[in-house]
């Protein structure tokens, strides 16, 4: 994709996002739509399948180094992870791991735009998400694994765990990150717990700004394709340990919270302020 001035990243398709993150002219798609690796399960349930199952894999270069991007298309089935789409992500991470083990570093980037597992594919989708988690943990010993949550879908469920496992997580203000999406929380816990239609409340809890302010995301970036690509490049030069390797720090943080008196979003920002982090 040719770089347009101040181009929105959020408005790009998954395919355009992958190209925007890779060095200009270096993007080469793997298992693209003409490979027709579709979900075998959705048509059985009367749902039209997309030819790439909603995941775009692309090889190329980032900062001149070999790289691979897996980008989820949020407009198709809410970016949900099925057997095929999840296997594509896990497979590309496992191949990157194999390259790294052979001394050929590959920079992996995940563009996460997903409600989590695809309910129509249930356990098969969950199994691939577990494979994705294992691959991220194995791969990040060799090279930072960089996650991007741009919006508008955000990143939820098992894939929110994948986001948390990334060495570096980049978010926009428009993005959301959480185990359960707001609609699920409202449905399960009642509207007194959370009104999913109350955008200000939802974003104050799980929006990119809050996740950054409380140290659960590493970089807060404007919705600009060039800025996001630059932050992805910079993330590979950041040697800080991944968040999920900082076990004692997060034990300490959790110990400071009274589950009977959960803090407001503002109070959590004070409790878990970035300045206090190692």
């Amino acid at each position, binding site marked *: 994709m040719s770089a347009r001035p101040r181009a929105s990243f959020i408005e790009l*398709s998954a395919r355009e996002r992958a190209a925007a993150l890779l060095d200009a002219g270096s993007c080469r798609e793997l298992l693209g739509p003409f490979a027709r690796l579709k979900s075998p399960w959705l*048509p059985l349930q009367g749902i*039209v*399948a*997309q*030819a790439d199952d909603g995941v775009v894999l692309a090889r190329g270069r980032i900062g001149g180094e070999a790289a691979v991007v897996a980008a989820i298309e949020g*407009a198709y089935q809410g970016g949900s992870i099925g057997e095929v789409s999840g296997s594509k992500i896990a497979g590309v991470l496992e191949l990157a791991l194999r390259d790294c083990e052979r001394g050929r570093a590959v920079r992996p980037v995940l563009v996460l735009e997903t409600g989590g597992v695809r309910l129509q594919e249930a356990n098969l989708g969950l199994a691939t998400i577990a494979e994705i988690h294992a691959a991220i943990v194995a791969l990040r010993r060799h090279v930072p694994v960089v996650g991007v949550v741009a919006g508008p879908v955000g990143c939820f469920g098992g894939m929110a765990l994948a986001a948390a496992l990334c060495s570096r997580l980049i978010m926009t203000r428009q993005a959301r990150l959480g185990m359960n999406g707001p609609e699920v929380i409202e449905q399960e816990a009642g509207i007194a717990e959370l009104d999913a239609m109350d955008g200000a409340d939802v974003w104050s809890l799980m929006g990119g700004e809050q996740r950054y302010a409380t140290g659960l995301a590493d970089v807060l970036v404007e919705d600009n394709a060039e800025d996001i690509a630059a932050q992805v490049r910079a993330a590979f030069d950041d040697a800080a340990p991944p968040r999920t390797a900082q076990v004692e720090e997060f034990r300490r943080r959790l110990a400071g919270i009274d589950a009977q008196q959960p803090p407001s979003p503002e109070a959590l920002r004070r409790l878990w302020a970035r300045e206090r982090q190692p």
Partner: protein
Amino acid sequence: MERLEFSYPARQPVARRVHVGVVGSGDLEVLLEPSPDGQAHVSVNTSVEGFGAVWRHVLDRFFGRFDGAAAIEINDSGATPGVVLLRLEQAVEALRE
């Protein structure tokens, strides 16, 4: 869900394959590639049943202007006829890029 097949005569060979669109609500994806037999073929997978005649009208209009020997797969999630035509024209435009 319904699957529909259409064929049209063609004059021009198609040099390469192009992909546009997404199977999102009210949208569709188009996979266009060279046809093996010199004719144009369209296979439609659509989430909405019973609109075969409308698909025929939309494709008649499209192939009134496009004479490429293309094998076209459409995966549709309830796009309106206008959106279908726009996506097909976008595919032809991408073909010429």
